[in-house]
């Protein structure tokens, strides 16, 4: 789990990883050292104050050179919210996230449908399984050109779609994966839905048990 200046959700992400049975290792944006981790999570928040564009500065942080290199070798990488924006800015994922079409920050329990359960981050779910996790973003509207959207849908690379459309995302896309399937970007937050006490349930836990299962199997 990488902390950038302005990251917000790395503590919740660490907690989710531990609840799923994993060991969370904190990584610092300024260190080009992944400390031997088996997977990387880029958390939500407002890295570098969202200056220039969301994720645009974080993409050039020293830690990202290692993340990009290891992602290319097949290491599982999950970017949530701002992490998704960073993965798009890094060109690890296609498309971009722009301001919500309704121009307001949204914070709500959101129903999401899992469309691809072959990634290391989603294999604990069923295809077309509906889950409720938290959506909180100001710039979460997923855009890409029509050819890219057709390709993503055709190749099964849309990982999750919204029920309804809370932010103007094209084709209701909530998450996508790269060609190899190891890098996943997701706008809503599974790490905020891992305990009944403080969230809309435990539907988000599957992302973390998925990756632990994948790593154990390999």
């Amino acid at each position, binding site marked *: 789990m990488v902390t950038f200046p302005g990251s917000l959700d790395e503590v919740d992400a660490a907690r989710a990883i531990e609840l799923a049975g994993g060991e969370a290792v904190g990584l610092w944006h300024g260190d080009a050292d992944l400390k031997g981790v088996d997977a990387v999570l880029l958390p939500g928040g407002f890295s570098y104050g969202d200056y220039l564009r969301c994720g645009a500065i974080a993409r*050039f942080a020293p830690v990202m050179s290692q993340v990009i290199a290891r992602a290319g070798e097949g290491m599982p990488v999950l970017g949530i919210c701002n992490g998704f924006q960073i993965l798009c800015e890094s060109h690890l994922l*296609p498309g*971009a996230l722009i301001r919500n079409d309704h121009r307001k920050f949204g914070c709500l329990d959101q129903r999401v449908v899992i469309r691809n359960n072959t990634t290391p981050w989603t294999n604990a779910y069923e295809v077309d399984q509906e889950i409720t996790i938290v959506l909180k973003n100001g710039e979460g509207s997923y855009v890409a050109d029509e050819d890219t959207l057709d390709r993503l849908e055709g190749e099964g690379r849309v990982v999750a779609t919204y029920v309804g459309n809370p932010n103007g995302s094209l084709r209701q896309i909530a998450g996508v994966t790269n060609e190899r399937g190891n890098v996943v970007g997701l706008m809503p937050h599974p790490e905020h839905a891992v305990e009944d006490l403080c969230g809309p349930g435990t539907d988000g836990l599957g992302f973390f048990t998925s990756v632990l299962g994948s790593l154990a199997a390999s």
Partner: protein
Amino acid sequence: MARVVVDVMPKPEILDPQGKAVQGALPRLGFTGVVEVRQGKRFEIELEGEATAERLDDVRRMAETLLSNPVIEDFEVRVLP
């Protein structure tokens, strides 16, 4: 010293919610007849020495890699007189 401007604009096909918000506010202030507003960014870059073709190529690379996101934005580079 040369001053170079990089204008970055959202691509025409990309929704521009900020421009839309400004467009919505103008009639409330009494400005009528505005058909569309698009909001972009302007970077002013000061270079050592002259703005040679090589230096301007550097600026274009800056614009492609950091100043703009080619997925959603177009840019233009020009030298200020």
